């Protein structure tokens, strides 16, 4: 191929440029990696010495979950700072090793393996998405027999000696929230979710609870993760006339809400969610006013340590920076629980730490938490409501909500 026509080359350059743009998009959304080791922070007080105890963080620092991944990582930093300032664990400082997962499952797996095999971390914290969590459940907990702490709200059901959840699971959110909705709006409920495992399992858990409190399930609608057409939902609401809708439609709730509002079917109909954190309110229309949400954390959450937690967050990361929600508190709690378990076990041996983890309690910013034998957390759930200024207003805190998970590992 010694001779090539110029036209071909020009096309080649054009195509390459196209590919570049494509890849830039790809890199922006699906791939990217960040950081390295955060030096052991603020070892001021008792100045822990000796080899650091390493904790790996698989954080979605780029891609669609950036806002949650960044906040999760920062909250972990806060907890590490606190623990190191008070002498570390077993006289050793904690050290975070952070890797960016690019909100991509294959990258998350690769980075988790790097943390386990190369950095030899004692525990992996993360990730955000439930698909990536499935991957790490296998890679970190089952295959590498390394402790995995998952700080995000999820559908529940995971069960492995090395797996611990510090996020909320469906029963502990649904059980306190539905009676409030029923009291305000009435007994008839419509379930609306995206068609994947989190909404489906949550609704299965919701059904007996609805029955128990004397509610009436009038319908159930599942649409694709990001649907373009909400006719089916609108029709269902029109036909079944629910008093309130319990929804788990996290990726495109703004579009669904707009469709319902435009169709005029939301008048007098309440809405409850278990996913709408503070960042989720951005971009929603005022039709969201009055929407209830139950999660472990909001900036308006009540609890003896909330103000101090927020202050520390502002101080370290900037006055306008806020923790994104459940995953932030989940990460903060996970670090504290891990440190406490290592101290109790007297070593970082995964089996010993896993055993020490179960049954321990700890006072989190929003109240006491207990690690259940199910490896899920009994914790305080906060119920909030969107106010006229499109910000969450505090409604009620429900202390000691059990996960109702039945895993025995």
């Amino acid at each position, binding site marked *: *191929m*010694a001779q*090539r*026509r110029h036209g*071909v*080359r020009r096309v*080649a*350059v054009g*195509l*390459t*440029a196209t*590919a*570049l743009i*494509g*890849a*830039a*998009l*790809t*890199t*922006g*959304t*699906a*791939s*990217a*990696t*960040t*950081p*390295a080791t955060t030096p052991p922070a603020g070892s001021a007080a008792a100045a822990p010495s000796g080899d650091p105890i390493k904790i790996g963080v698989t954080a979605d*620092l*780029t891609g669609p979950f950036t806002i949650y991944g960044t906040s999760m990582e920062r909250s972990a930093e806060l907890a590490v700072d606190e623990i190191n300032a008070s002498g570390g664990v077993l006289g050793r400082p904690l050290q975070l090793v952070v*890797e*960016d997962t*690019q909100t*991509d*499952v*294959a990258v998350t*797996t*690769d980075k988790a*393996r*790097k943390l386990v*095999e*190369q950095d030899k971390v004692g525990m992996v914290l993360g990730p955000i998405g*439930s*698909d990536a969590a*499935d*991957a790490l459940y*296998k*890679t970190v907990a089952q*295959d590498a027999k390394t402790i995995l702490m998952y700080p995000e709200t999820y559908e529940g059901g995971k069960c492995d000696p090395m797996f611990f959840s510090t996020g909320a699971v469906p029963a502990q959110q649904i059980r306190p929230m539905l009676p409030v909705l029923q009291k305000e709006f009435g007994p008839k409920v419509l379930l609306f979710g995206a*068609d*994947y*495992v989190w909404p489906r399992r949550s609704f299965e858990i919701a059904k007996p609870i609805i029955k128990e409190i004397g509610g009436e399930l009038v319908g159930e609608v599942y649409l*694709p*993760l990001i649907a373009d057409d909400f006719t089916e939902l609108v029709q269902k609401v029109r036909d079944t006339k629910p008093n309130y809708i319990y929804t788990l439609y996290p990726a495109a709730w703004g579009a669904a809400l707009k469709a319902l509002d435009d169709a005029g079917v939301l008048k007098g109909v309440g809405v409850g969610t278990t996913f709408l954190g503070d960042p989720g309110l951005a971009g929603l229309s005022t039709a969201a006013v009055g929407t209830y949400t139950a999660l472990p954390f909001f900036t308006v959450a009540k609890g003896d340590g909330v103000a101090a937690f927020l202050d520390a967050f502002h101080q370290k990361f900037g006055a306008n920076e806020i923790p994104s929600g459940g995953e932030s508190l989940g990460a903060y709690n996970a670090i504290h629980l891990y440190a406490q378990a290592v101290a109790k076990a007297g070593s970082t041996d995964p089996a010993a730490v896993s055993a020490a983890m179960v049954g321990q309690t700890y006072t989190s910013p929003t109240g006491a938490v207990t690690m259940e034998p199910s490896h899920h957390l009994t914790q305080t759930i906060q119920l909030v409501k969107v106010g006229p200024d499109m910000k969450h207003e505090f409604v009620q805190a429900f202390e000691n909500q059990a996960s109702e998970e039945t895993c025995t590992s």
Partner: protein
Amino acid sequence: MARSTRVRIAELVLLAALIVAPLVVHDAFTIDRFGRYLLYAVFAISVDLIWGVGGVLTFGHAAFFGAGGYLAAIFMERGGWFLPLPLWPAIALAVACVAMFAVLLSGLAFRGPFPMRGVELAVITLAVAYLLEQYARAGGRLTGGQNGILIGPRLTVFGINVHRGRNFYLLAAATLIVCYVVARWFVSSRAGLVVRGIRDNEPRVDLLGYHVPNMKIAVFVLSATLAALAGALFYVHEGIITPGAVGVAASTQVLLWVALGGRATLIGPIVGTIVLQHLTATLSGRLLDTWILVIGALLIVVVMLFPAGVLGWLDRGPSR
């Protein structure tokens, strides 16, 4: 130095590097990570066959790479009828199914009532990847939806565990070398010469009496088959496959590896893949927020200086 000599030297250097690498690198994790790059490199070779050699741009080749993985996963993890299958029968059947699909798709595209060319085919490949990704997301129990399929069985060869570390690297390197030799053989064969002729001047080849559509189908199917094999091995090693595997984003990323390394060189895409993957994995751990910009700028500079790719420049000499 004649270009064929330069390419031979590049081939030998790369081959030597592939073989020496596990002797020099002792860290099991790093060598495992390089094994992943080598399977990605097979994917890049498959794209080079269709795009570089065949002159047909594809925006959806991850459909074949990912389908190899998805089908292998389904054959091993789902029950009923003749399932689940053991590891290698599952992989073989997955690759065969993808090859059959490629025959149907390319037959329809090149010999159907409306034979397609250039941009039309690029759009078709884009649509296939988009459809498969949507189906993988919505496929209920079969594809596992958004959360994908966890793959339990490990890679073994004659009872030897080749799932992780050095052994996995050797499996990946062997796969790469075999696929490279097959691709090189095809390109230098009579059929390969005709395919290159079609790329450069289709009417002339047609007038010479060659059956142009069949030649295009041949290169398309070979390309899809190599991609499916690499994809099946890649995702069994990952232990999980999710909808992004068959998507458009993964399909455009591979174009970059090929463009950077040098289209139509076969060896260039291998180099492009390894370099870009490794830069991404390591830079991202060190440069925090700025690494994307650094890699982007680097790519723009390289593509402007070497429009034919780094190895293409070596192959053909300076372009201006």
